[in-house]
């Protein structure tokens, strides 16, 4: 075997960490000075590699490592807990919001339904004497009409902007009947439509009402 072959064997032995040499290699080293020198240099090189790698990894571990990791873990845990709490609050807030919106929407729908079925009554504030209601003049209201239209003929334009009064359907029907009968009671109609005066009312004597005969008739609106 040539010196090159022996050197390969030497390197293989040193690379595997085996310090004992095979018999033939040991014999060759005894007779070949060049190979012996090469072997010694390689032993030195592998030793230097080992000590160099050991120096790289066996650095003293800093004492701050564990406390830093613990602090990081505590920091990492904190937002997770905070997120949990935040999500709970968010869920509650969203639930409350949804319920509120639903309730509001329903009440608005109901209001709209009532408003659709009820006539609007305009009101006007006048002077410093307080609020005086100006009743609308009702034109051509038939008793059988489902939604009698009330027009504010005498009310000025600003009365339209005035707040509307929502009246129940039964009250509206009763009012319509009352207005239908108004032509027969002219004075009552005038009293209703005329603005109130600042003059104080005079005392009026009213005679007791006497009913001789009572005739009971079914209401028109109660017909099937």
């Amino acid at each position: 075997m040539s010196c090159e072959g022996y050197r390969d064997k030497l390197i293989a032995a040193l690379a595997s960490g085996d310090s004992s040499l095979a018999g033939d290699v040991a014999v060759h080293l005894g007779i070949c000075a060049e190979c012996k020198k090469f072997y010694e240099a390689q032993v030195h090189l592998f030793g230097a590699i080992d000590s160099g790698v050991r120096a790289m990894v066996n650095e003293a571990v800093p004492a701050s490592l564990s406390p830093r990791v613990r602090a990081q873990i505590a920091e990492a845990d904190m937002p997770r807990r905070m997120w949990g709490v935040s999500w709970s609050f968010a869920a509650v807030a969203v639930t409350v919001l949804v319920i509120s919106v639903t309730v509001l929407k329903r009440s608005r729908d109901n209001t709209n339904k009532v408003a659709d079925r009820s006539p609007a009554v305009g009101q006007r504030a006048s002077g410093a004497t307080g609020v005086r209601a100006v009743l609308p003049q009702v034109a051509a209201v038939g008793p059988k009409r489902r939604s009698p239209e009330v027009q504010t003929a005498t009310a000025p334009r600003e009365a339209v902007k005035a707040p509307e009064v929502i009246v129940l359907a039964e009250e509206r029907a009763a009012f319509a009947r009352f207005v239908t009968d108004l032509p027969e009671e002219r004075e009552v109609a005038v009293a209703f439509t005329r603005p109130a005066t600042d003059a104080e009312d005079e005392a009026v004597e009213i005679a007791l009402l006497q009913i001789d005969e009572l005739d009971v008739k079914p209401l028109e609106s109660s017909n099937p």
Partner: protein
Amino acid sequence: MRELVLIQPGRVLVGPSERESESCRAHREFEERLAECGPLAFRVAHGVLRNAADAEDVAQEALLKAYRNFGRLREPARFRGWLVRITFRMALDRWRSVKRREKRETQGEPPEQRAVGPTVEELAVSSEFQARLERAMEELPEKFRLVLLLAAIEGHTLEEVSGVLGIPMGTVKSRLFFARKQLAEKLR
């Protein structure tokens, strides 16, 4: 108000106190692993980065990651292997980003003159040898490099390296052999 509880067959009902004690137990177990494997993570990182501050940062990140995944890493052997591999990967990533930054900063500057001529004996004792060794290590395939680093950690036997990496003993020996041989060729 009465509370309704859903009980499913075949499932153990875990109450809040039991959950808490489970969490405490996990925390205690992680503390044990931290004491045992923290230095290992630091050393692996230092083997790659050769800088204590960077190695500490990487070890810390790796341990935090391990904590987050501790649910599936409760088995000690599994934990060690996972931690070593993740630390090694993270250290390599850090090392690459450091190198890229250095390259950007030194762009335009003349290339470093490499000294030639000194004998192996002279190099072995010099800091230049260490620098050359580090460069040679960086050129090693990752799997060789990791085995070399783990085997060099004080008190680590080849059996332990095999256990940590989950590879057969023969594979550890062969990787170590090729790593040392390649290093010697580069440094000769």
